[in-house]
């Protein structure tokens, strides 16, 4: 790909956008370039960007998982309830991860083996898993975990980076390798492009789908536990509404909602765009609904611009012919 066509691609556009936003942040606020701020920039959204990785795989494979935020809640509530009952924390954490994998297994089984649409299945999961979480902790906040657990989400581990950030970086590299350099990646793309063709070419489609959802649930539970470590306590409304922010990151990254196309580089850039935008606006004291509106507008543009460009391109071609 030539430099020019690379720039005209979606990732090129995101890169330009990122440079503009970072440029604005650097010039408009003196606080942006501090190490502490750059760590906070990731830290304040770390759970969402960790889940965005598995969400990328799910959407490329032609499915969606709306239940991730509720699985975060479920897993943290399982952990909190067990811990409160006197179970050792490592055991409670393992049970929490298992509950996330189980939620993913239920989602995956319904989609892969019962043939139900993932939109409906995981919408039910969105309601149901949070419901179970709320039953577990009721209207309480359960805190008071050992210091080592809180430290996972709050204290630097490697240099200024927290455990959560290190985990994200590792998972990002693993996901990139899996998606671009392994047969698993080829299967994921082929399922999203043409499920029938994938099936005929010998891919065990059902099995693959089931595994994808299990990983999505497991990863959501992992992110949920990091969130609990960052906040220091667990409530039934943990991560309420996070699924939309996560899906926004993936779609803005150029992943097609219909599956089959998109890549992790785009999602990585989109994450940087959104995080820098949020951070810059926060430091410029633009908060709340104004911030949400700007990110909403960005998403609309991300859907509109490529389609408009295609339309204009086709019109142009039509005239030439």
């Amino acid at each position: 790909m030539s430099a020019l066509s690379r720039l005209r691609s979606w990732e090129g556009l995101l890169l330009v956008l990122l440079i503009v936003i970072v440029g604005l942040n650097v010039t408009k606020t003196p606080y942006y370039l501090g190490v502490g701020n750059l760590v906070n920039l990731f830290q304040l959204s770390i759970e969402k960007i960790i889940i965005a990785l598995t969400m990328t795989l799910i959407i490329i494979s032609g499915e969606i998982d709306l239940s991730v935020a509720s699985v975060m809640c479920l897993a943290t509530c399982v952990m909190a309830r067990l811990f409160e009952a006197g179970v050792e924390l490592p055991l409670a954490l393992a049970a929490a991860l298992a509950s996330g994998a189980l939620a993913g297994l239920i989602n995956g089984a319904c989609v892969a083996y019962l043939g139900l649409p993932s939109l409906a299945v995981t919408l039910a999961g969105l309601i149901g898993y949070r419901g179970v979480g709320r039953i577990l902790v009721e209207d309480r906040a359960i805190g008071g975990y050992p210091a080592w657990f809180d430290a996972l989400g709050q204290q630097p581990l490697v240099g200024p980076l927290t455990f959560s950030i290190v985990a994200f970086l590792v998972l990002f590299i693993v996901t990139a390798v899996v998606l671009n350099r392994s047969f698993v990646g080829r299967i994921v793309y082929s399922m999203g492009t043409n499920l029938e063709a994938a099936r005929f070419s010998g891919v065990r489609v059902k099995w693959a789908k089931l595994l994808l959802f299990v990983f999505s649930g497991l990863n959501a539970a992992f992110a949920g536990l990091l969130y609990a470590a960052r906040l220091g306590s667990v409530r039934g409304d943990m991560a309420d509404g996070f699924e939309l922010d996560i899906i926004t990151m993936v779609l803005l990254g150029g992943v097609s909602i219909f599956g089959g196309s998109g890549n992790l580089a785009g999602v990585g850039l989109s994450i940087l765009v959104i995080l820098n935008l949020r951070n810059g606006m926060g430091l410029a004291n633009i908060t709340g609904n104004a911030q949400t509106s700007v990110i909403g507008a960005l998403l609309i543009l991300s859907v509109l611009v490529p389609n408009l460009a295609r339309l204009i391109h086709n019109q142009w071609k039509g005239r030439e012919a």
Partner: protein
Amino acid sequence: MRKILLTTAALALLALPSGGFAADAVATATPGKALKMVLLPKFSGNAVFDLAHNGALEAQKELKNPTDLQFLAPPASSPTGQIDIITNATTQGVNAIMISDNIGEQLAPAVKAAHDKGIKIVTWDSQIPSGANEDVFVAQVDFNETGKVMADMALKILPNGGKFAILSASPDASNQNAWIKALHELLKTDPKYSKLQEVDLVYGNDESEKSHNQALALVDKHPDLQLIMAPTTIGIVAAAKAMQDEKLCDKVKVSGLGLPSEMVAYTMNGCAPAFALWDFTNLGYLTYYAAYMLAAGDMKAEEGIKFKAGRMGEYTITKDPTRQHGLRILMGPFSVYDKSNVEAATK
């Protein structure tokens, strides 16, 4: 050597009375300092927080702080947005953050990071439950009194007793929880209120629609319910409107904490015969004074310190009797509104 001893003794004598005076002395503000201050309400779009903002702006003008007050609120849909705002304010190195805590202890790590950096943390309206890393809490009213005011209003509306339910804000709103606890305590211990029977406690998360639905669900669930007590300005309006719209006002009355301007119609038509509140403008004003004086070094956050808060007069920092740890400045008092005075209060 003797000279030194004498001097020391003389100094000690001098120091004694002046030290004694210091305890009684009333700290006053040094106006004109450029202090970066952030006022952080629970969320945006609630009228009472806008009133508090007005009060804080009035204090800023009086104290001639040339730096603009930042009024930063997360959207109601994202309560943990409070963490982002505190974290960014810490990065900016502001001098004081005034917080109405909406997420209980989940705020604690962000508040610790701010406090470690030397930022003064003043909570108002809703305190940090543990009191950790908080300099002082400006309490609107005595929390035990809130329980008593609610019980008295319930008894006034139901003189022969009856069943009532509580419609609160979010499960982790420290202020509402403390008030409800005080009410429970009173119902249990004071025989005067033995005729009042609490049948349910639900949460509307301070969202109008959810509170509206919760109020209707209460009526469905408890057919002999006579009163909904909502210690939240959003919940009480939603409940009153729900009862009015469903024509249930003859059967189920609404009471609690509300804003006169939002409640006047429901009080006049009998749906909400009585409700109470304190002055939120004054709360914002007093909070700003306390935060300014702490950040300016005009006073310390210590038990027994007295200070003058402009037009509102003198206040004392005391131990907070409602928490194990933490200091409190008590504003008070309550105003109870009914048909006789609610219209005047909206003018």
